[in-house]
């Protein structure tokens, strides 16, 4: 009797490990995560406007209908990227996600200032390889380090009322993410 109880206790402990393991593995195993959903529509190292969500269809769940959204799938394998997102009338933000949908950096138009949000995206290794003498460029260019080689950049432009949505979309059409 005791012996069976011990087997069950061992099973419970192992079950705990299975639980933790499956929770940790899930973001890497999910085949319908946001990156996968956008893969067919969004080019690598280029922006594409996402279709506005409607009751019938939305490319992602919980999209904010008051925003125009453009996404870029980045790949830093060949070198750093230069990102330029023009700022719309009301509010513009850029959020960086890893390949597995962790938002690791976000910036909005107030933090960036000027007429566009401009920054360089690179891996930690690529940043270390930057020549030291380029102090001027380091001072006026914002550098974001990506923890992964691939991921998503999502630019959002706010439309305070539905009639302003097309203007917000037009602003994002000029967004660029391309190799330097």
């Amino acid at each position, binding site marked *: 009797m005791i012996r069976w109880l011990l087997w069950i206790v061992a*099973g419970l402990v192992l079950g705990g490990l299975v639980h933790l393991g499956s929770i940790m593995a899930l973001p890497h195993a999910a085949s319908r*995560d946001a990156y996968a959903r956008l893969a067919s529509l969004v080019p690598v190292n280029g922006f594409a406007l996402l279709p506005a969500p409607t009751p019938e269809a*939305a490319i992602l769940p919980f999209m904010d209908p008051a925003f125009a959204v453009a996404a870029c799938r980045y790949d830093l394998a060949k070198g750093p990227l230069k990102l330029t997102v023009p700022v719309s009338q*009301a509010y513009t*933000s850029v959020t960086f*996600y890893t390949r597995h949908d962790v*938002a690791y950096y976000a910036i909005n138009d107030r933090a960036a200032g000027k007429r566009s949000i401009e920054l360089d995206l690179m891996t930690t290794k690529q940043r270390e390889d930057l020549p030291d003498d380029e102090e001027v460029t380091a001072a006026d260019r914002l550098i974001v380090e990506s923890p992964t080689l691939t991921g*998503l950049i999502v630019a959002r432009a706010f439309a305070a009322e539905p009639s302003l949505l097309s203007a917000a979309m037009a602003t994002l059409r000029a967004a660029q993410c391309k190799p330097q």
Partner: protein
Amino acid sequence: MRLLIGLLLSFVVAAGIGLGSTWYALTQNLSFGALELGAWRGFPRNGTVAIDPYARAVIARNGELPVGSGDGVAFTAAADDDGRPLDGRCDVVVRGTTPPARYFTLTLYTPSGGLVANSLGRHGFTSQELLRDASGEFEITVSPRARPGNWLPTGGVDRYILMFRFYDTSLGIATRAGREAPMPAIRLTRTCQ
């Protein structure tokens, strides 16, 4: 023989408990570190690299992209202040003020994150669209039938959730519930279709 049966028993228990609890955690949206303001729950950590593994798993499974913490914070409510689930066939009044933010939006979703079809084509309000009273408070009536003032149509669905998103805000991980973060009250009224 006994050893084999014992091992088998262990593995069956492990698989059942392990995968069962994972499935439960995912379907029940089990997440830690919620900032609870009345009926509203927000997860400011979800927009950072400090996101907890459960929230990560739920987000990957649903295919969402969380709001980044330098962008804003999202809060959801699936029930009114007394804990009654939001019912699209009843009138629900959302009244009060919001924490400081440059802009905010309030959106009505199905529990799985889709928009609800309605005759007006309205799925939410932005902070610029809301009509407010003299004290700066607003009142939104979430109802299947047209209402005067700020009417948010439910399309008659039986369950829905409300999502507030605050953009460019000081709200975040360090926020404590209380005076610095006033959230509107949600009250289910008796008027049902």
